[in-house]
Structures are given as C-alpha cells and as structure tokens.
C-alpha cells in the first residue's frame, strides 16, 4: 500500500474538526438522520462507532503490509463486521433497551462509510498509533455531531432530554407538565432530522467559508 504518513496531532485534529464526519466529509448521514431522535440513542450509536473505528483501524493498520490490493475491501469488511457484531451483542446483553431502540442501525454500522473510509484513507497507510488516534478522533467527532443534533431535536420535540426515567433534564418546560412550551412533534420525524442537519451544515459552511 502507498505510504501516506500523517502525525498523531493531525489525525486527532482532523477527526474533531478539519475532517469531522457528517459536517465536513458528509459521511455517515444515514444513521445521523435516523438515530438523532434522542441524545441517549445518539450517544450509544456514537460510542459503538468509536469502538468499531478504533478496533478496525488498529487491525487494518497491523495487517497493512500484508494486504493484497484486490482483497483489501473484503478484508476491511470482514474486520469491521466482526467488531460491529461484538458491539451489537454487547448492547443486546447489557443495554437491551438501547439495542431495541436502535434496532437495525447497529448492524448497519458495517456499511457506515466513515469506517471503511478511515480504514482505506488512514489505517491502510499509517502505523497503529496514528490509526487508533484517527479512529478515536473520528468516532468522537461523529458522536459529538450526533449528540448536538439529537439534543436540538429532543429538546424541541419534548422540551427535555431524557436519559432514564429518573434522570430527565428539562430545558423548555412543556405544556403537559404545566409549563409554557408546546412540543414540536415534527422534530421527531424525518423532516426534523433534515431541517436540523441542513441548518447545522449551513452554519458550519458559513463559519468555515474562505474569503476569495
């Protein structure tokens, strides 16, 4: 494989801002739209992606000198699928409610473009340390975006952020609890996901717009 060395710091900064998935690379949009109905779902999905990215990047980096070019995508998929299955089993065993709520979106991490993109663009060309840091940063960047979008949608749709029956953060006091805020049910629908993501992308593009 062609060597394209990058530094640990560059990999870390890249994942958290310069190449943050969803907002800059426009990758992982499907789970972003689907699981951001609640912060807890977004956080769980994000942490699963962090685990899969770190593990798959580490394994791909370790075997990078043995990879045959025509077999590399098959090897990436095999590696990613194994770690996604482990994450799925973990959720089923220890977080059954989240496993049910996220449904097919956890197994679908296998086809998440961010993971195969990082395996191809970073792990297959760099050492283990850089690859692991890249996986961590990309995963955290993805998680932050999911939590940010989910918090906007959940607050506007319900007035609060719910982590469990006993841990609820009320941001806008909703009418059904004697408050003033009428929840926007549409924010839980696909339209809410598209509008929130679109406005966030617009804001990020405005922030990063280069002067001519």
């Amino acid at each position: 494989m062609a060597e394209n060395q990058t530094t640990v710091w560059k990999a870390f900064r890249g994942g958290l801002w310069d190449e943050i998935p969803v907002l800059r690379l426009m990758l992982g949009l499907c789970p972003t739209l689907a699981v951001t109905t609640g912060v807890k779902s977004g956080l769980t999905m994000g942490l699963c992606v962090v685990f899969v990215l770190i593990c798959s990047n580490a394994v791909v980096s370790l075997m990078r000198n043995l990879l045959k070019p025509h077999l590399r995508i098959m090897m990436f998929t095999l590696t990613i699928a194994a770690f996604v299955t482990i994450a799925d089993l973990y959720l089923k065993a220890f977080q059954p409610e989240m496993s049910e709520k996220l449904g097919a979106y956890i197994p679908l991490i296998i086809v998440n473009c961010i993971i195969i993109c990082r395996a191809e663009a970073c792990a297959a060309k760099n050492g283990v340390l850089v690859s692991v840091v890249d996986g961590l940063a990309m995963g955290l960047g993805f998680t932050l975006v999911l939590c940010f979008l989910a918090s906007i949608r959940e607050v506007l749709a319900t007035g609060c952020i719910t982590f469990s029956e006993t841990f609820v953060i009320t941001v806008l006091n909703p009418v059904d609890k004697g408050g003033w805020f009428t929840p926007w049910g549409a924010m839980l629908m696909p339209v809410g996901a598209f509008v929130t993501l679109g406005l966030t992308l617009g804001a990020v593009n405005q922030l990063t717009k280069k002067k001519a």
Partner: protein
Amino acid sequence: MSSKIALFFRESWLLMVSSLFFGGLLAITNAAWSPKVAENEIKKFNRLAGGLLTGATQFESVKDISMNLGKGKTAAVDIRKGLDASGNCLGWAFVCEGSGFVDTIKLVVTTDAGFTKMYGFGVLQCSETPGFGDKLNIKDGFYQSQFKGVPTEPFKLVKGGDPKALDSNIVAITGATVTSRAVVNALNEYMQQIKPQLVKQGLITQ
C-alpha cells in the same frame, strides 16, 4: 495444477486466517454473552406477560405448538401457561410476530385460561416510525387498549369508529395503517392456529 493451488493459497491465506480468527472471536463473545441475552429476553417476556396476567407468578412452557408460515414452512411458537402461586392456570402468554412497516414487530399476547378472551398485548420489539407506528408501543394507549378484554374471534381493522368499544373492530392508528394491519393480521393468524393445537393437546376445551 499444484502451481494454481499454490497461487490460491498465496493470494487468500490472509483472508482465510482472518476469517478463522474473527469467527473464533465471535464464537467466544457469543458464548460469553448469549446467556445474558437470553436472560434479558425471558425477563422482558415475564415482565410484559406478568403485567397483563395479574397474579401470575410463573410461566410454564408448552411444547409442540407451531405456526404454519406457508410454502411448507413452520415455526415453533413460544407459548407459556401463566400460573398463580397455587399452580392454577390464569391464562396463556405467547410471542406473536408480524411484518411491520419498518421491521418485524414482536408482541407478547395474553389470553384467559380458556383462550376465549384477550387480556391484551405488550410490545417485545418494535422499530416502527416514531410518532406514527410506534404509538403501538404506548402502554395503555388507545391502540393497545382496544385489545383488552375482547373475544379472541378474528379482528377486523377499521379506519374510523369507537376505539373504546370492546368488539372485534380495531381502529387503526392514523398515519400507520400498515403497522396497525400487521398487528391485526398477526394476531388473527396466531389465534387461529394456536387454539386448535391447544385443544388437541387437551390443554383447553373447544
């Protein structure tokens, strides 16, 4: 010939070794966590069924009850007898599945001891559209309430009507007709096939 075999192994050894390694890793993980997954499923079943069959303290599995899925395919049905502390049968609970709008819907359905009246259902698995199909998941919501105390005769899905009437007409969830129909069809199918088998085993009377 031997050069072709050598080429095959030279090109694919990494793939074969990796497949064995990851297969082993998954087998170990599955062996370690599958008891916990099974325990979670049993806990959820008991919680849902216990909530609907008031007084049931234990559930006893019944064997050899199956569903004909068509095209010669059959599947075993997880049906259990709900017993009180003295061992008296309070009713039946079983897992019922149907194809929803997004994914398979799994329900825990409960009936009385004679299999003539439904006590209601609880949702084991539902990934239906938030705000529409997932209203099926609201405990004691208008859709679930329509099945409480109704006879186990075939249900009919209607788009309007009184959801509080205890009859076989089930009012669909607005904007989620596919989900509502999936539940009604699955319940009808399971009720029709399970009852004769329970009668045949002498567990209930006709």
